[in-house]
């Protein structure tokens, strides 16, 4: 199943290359952002108000990406594609594959039946609509580009389902967000602020909401990206993504202290775009604690590497 989805995505990306001749005009380099792990256009972690791909009004464009992140105890592979329509609407689809091998330690707490080397898979369907402003061309005002979006997420936890049942989390959820993005062109600085309404745990990898003493309802969490354009082809930046931390109290209620605590995600990144059709992003990520109860309370830090093709 996984291989045929990947094949389908590659085939789709290849067939979309024919649109390149029509859609190769339009955007300035790197101004469409790169692809987030969830598939929407933005920084690596946070969706921006820009519409992905090179297409401007009257045009349709597409992007495809593959990403890998690795920290001390976990790793994540993600891939996906997005279509931008008339620089107004963006539709994205992404698949995340999270190596949750440390979770086998949970069998020591209760007979959860977690399999060795268990992966959690999550699919994200994203929709984003630009509602106002132009991130680049409105350089004489403070007005940002504003977009609203949603990410419908569906998680397949495999043998970890018993754990999610214990935690009282659901396996599907929808995040809603509003993003405001502005490129301060005279200063070569891009700033993005996103407000997300979500009840996802670890972005959805640990399900949505929480039972018992946890927080089940969505909360508003802020996300910020700042990027500096070093040159036409290179941008550096930082991102910060707050998290709702719904599960910590479930852990406390079960006498496990902060075993289920969740922290903000942060990164420092550098993005390189040799031309309008390709970009590579490398980041140092700090994903905070991810189920610290089974990872010795460690903060998960490591690298994130992503490649994107755009048409």
């Amino acid at each position, binding site marked *: 199943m996984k291989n045929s989805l990947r094949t389908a995505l590659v085939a789709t990306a290849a067939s979309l290359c024919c649109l390149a001749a029509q859609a190769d005009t339009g955007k*300035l380099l790197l101004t469409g952002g790169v692809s987030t792990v969830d598939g929407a256009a933005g920084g690596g972690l946070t969706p921006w108000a820009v519409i992905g791909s090179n297409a401007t*009004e009257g045009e349709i464009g597409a992007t495809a990406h593959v990403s890998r992140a690795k920290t001390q105890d976990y790793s994540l592979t993600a891939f996906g594609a997005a279509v931008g329509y008339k620089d107004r609407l963006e539709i994205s689809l992404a698949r995340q594959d999270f190596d949750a091998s440390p979770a086998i330690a949970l069998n020591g707490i209760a007979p959860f039946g977690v399999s060795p080397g268990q992966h959690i898979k999550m699919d994200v369907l994203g929709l984003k609509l630009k509602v106002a402003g132009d991130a680049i061309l409105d350089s004489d005002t403070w007005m940002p580009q504003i977009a609203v979006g949603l990410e419908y997420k569906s998680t397949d936890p495999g043998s970890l389902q018993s754990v999610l049942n214990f935690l009282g989390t659901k396996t599907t959820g929808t995040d809603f967000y509003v993003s405001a993005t502005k490129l301060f062109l005279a200063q070569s600085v891009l700033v993005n602020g996103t407000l997300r309404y979500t009840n996802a745990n670890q972005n959805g990898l640990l399900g949505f909401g929480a039972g018992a003493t946890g927080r089940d309802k969505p909360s508003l969490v802020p996300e910020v990206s700042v990027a500096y354009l070093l040159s036409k082809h290179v941008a550096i930046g930082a991102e910060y993504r707050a998290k709702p931390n719904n599960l910590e109290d479930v852990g406390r209620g079960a006498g496990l202290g902060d075993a289920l605590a969740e922290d903000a995600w942060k990164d420092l990144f550098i993005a390189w775009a040799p031309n309008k059709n390709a970009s590579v992003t490398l980041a140092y990520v700090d994903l905070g604690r991810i189920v610290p109860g089974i990872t010795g309370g460690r903060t998960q830090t490591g690298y994130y590497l992503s490649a994107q093709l755009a048409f």
Partner: protein
Amino acid sequence: MTKTTLTSTVLAIAMATSTWMALPAQAQTNPMASAAASAPLYQALGEKAGLTALMDDFMARLLADPRTAPFFKPANQQHIKEMLVVQFCMVSGGPCTYKGVDMKTAHASMDITKGDFNALVEVLQQSMDATGIPFTAQNALLAKLAPMHRDVITVK
């Protein structure tokens, strides 16, 4: 008549009309060098000589790029270059006064999409790279020019 031919014809008429009707641009050269010294962007662009070199390169590229050539081939290229030098001089803080046609009038009769506008900006970036204008100065200039998109883009 194809759309391109019609557009070129209308463009040619519009440019001819605006050339005939517009007051000749008076580049008011100020003998005081300090006027230029207080405009760092104008200096970074190479002042008058730099802008002239930039426009020569710019027009050549506009004519060579298939996305922009249809708009500029039928136009009075020398006149446009002279207008652009004065306009860029002015927006970058230099001692010039632009007395040509306003952007809205100059472009009103053309079909210019956001894609066309962005193509021109891209060509301008290429010219600025070729004439050695530093990246930060490029962005500072683009920041001054970008709001003109409201008058230049005619096809929403």
